[in-house]
């Protein structure tokens, strides 16, 4: 193989590092996309026998948003193999214990059940906030688009802006809203 071919191959089969911001994202929908990147299914060269998966760094996993009443209804099962060792943890409890766990479990499930799962899962790095180690930050080279835009919350808008926002009706200060 000539050095030109070697270099071409090195570039083609490069392991990229993507970042995904999980703020206000549904972990179970976004894990479908993340799994695609981890398994390399987003590349035109992908093939079941071709290990071309990328690394994905998920940040702000503590800010995820579950749909509807899933925080109460979604339950995680664990058994410690002893009698009476079964335990059921609700999503909000698990999230309180470890804010990265729901994201990790969602991606683990989305990777599918075959031998590539563990290698692909090892390429997932989840962080609860946007503070990530410098050596990982330097590896990054691309960003995965969020599923939905993050809406602005009322408490994040500065009071000046709220003051200057055009109003249809200017209510008198003495008017009491009940």
């Amino acid at each position, binding site marked *: *193989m*000539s*050095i*030109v*071919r070697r*270099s*071409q191959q*090195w*570039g083609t089969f*490069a*392991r*990229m*590092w993507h970042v995904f911001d999980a703020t206000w994202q549904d972990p179970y929908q976004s894990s479908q996309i993340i799994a695609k990147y981890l398994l390399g299914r987003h590349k035109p060269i992908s093939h079941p026998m071709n290990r071309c998966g990328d*690394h994905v760094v998920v940040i702000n996993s503590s800010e995820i948003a579950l749909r509807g009443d899933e925080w109460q209804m979604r339950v995680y099962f664990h058994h410690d193999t002893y009698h009476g060792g079964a335990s059921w943890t609700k999503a909000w409890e698990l999230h309180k214990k470890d804010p990265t766990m729901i994201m990790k479990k969602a991606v683990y499930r989305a990777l599918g059940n075959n031998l590539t799962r563990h290698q692909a899962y090892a390429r997932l790095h989840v962080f609860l906030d946007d503070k990530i180690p410098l*050596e*990982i930050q*330097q*590896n*990054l*080279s*691309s960003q995965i688009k969020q599923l939905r835009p993050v809406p602005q919350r009322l408490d994040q808008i500065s009071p000046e802006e709220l003051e200057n926002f055009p109003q249809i009706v200017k209510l008198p200060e003495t008017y009491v809203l009940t």
Partner: protein
Amino acid sequence: MFRLRVCTRLAAQLPRAALVNQIFQREIKRSVRPVLIELTKRKRMQKNPISQPRNKWIDWNRDAELYAFNQRLSEKFKTDLLEQAFTHRSYIIQEEDERKKVGLESQLQLVDNQELIDEGKQIASLVVENYLNEVLPLAPRECILALKNYLLAEGNLAKTSSGIGTKDLILTAEYPVSEETLMNTFYALVSALNRSVDLEHVGKFIRDIVISTLAEKDLIEIWCPEDPMEILNDILDREGRAYAESRIIGQTGVNTLIPVYNIAVYSNKEFLGSGMGDSIEEAEKMAALNALLRMFDLLDSSKPISCNLPIRDAECNSSLESWKRSDKV
């Protein structure tokens, strides 16, 4: 199906009696197996298996084979020249010695091919270089010479030579025929064709048989400049442009075992080429190499070597020391 195949294979191996058996019997007889085992055992016990060159077999008809050689290649070799091209010096010496042993005094009426070989070497070298110059007008002289050396190397020519069927026709003392002899025979054939027809026809012969093998080769594997950055800067300097400047245009996995850097080289903000590598130095080298290959028109996307151009004299390409784009474009 399998049965048929076994039968045919046996037919080739067994004496005639067994063959008759195969035709008239539905199955293979019980006696066949022990016989075959015995035969194999004996063959294995033989210390020096006798093998003879094909042209020593009694059914060998040399004249017919020479005629077939001519026809197969659709060439017009003159018969005496063809005969001479296949006759090596060692064969004549061997024959004369044998005659002396028997007691015959008369001289052999054979001419060896040494003269043809020397002439053929010159012709082949000339033709190949001319054609490569024509077909790769932007490549530097070093590249042309490297390609020529590759094409006219002993192994390559020997392969070509045996490919056109010279192996059994060669008259030489050695057996099996060495690569050098095969190569020399090819040169002798080239010269014989030159004397039989003309130089242009020989050019086509060499183009079709030797040069066309380049079409499937990666040329960079055969020739690759050693220090591309230095060469690139020399060329840019000669053309009066700014020195090459490299910039990282992409990188990923820097702190891992498999980092990838994508580096491009620019001259006065003009893009020259880009390359990938596992370190910055490597990627820079590849970028410079890419820029060079772009200039020399040796990329994958550049025009492939065509094997149907007419044979004519071409200008000699300039070497790396004096290569300039403005001369060519």
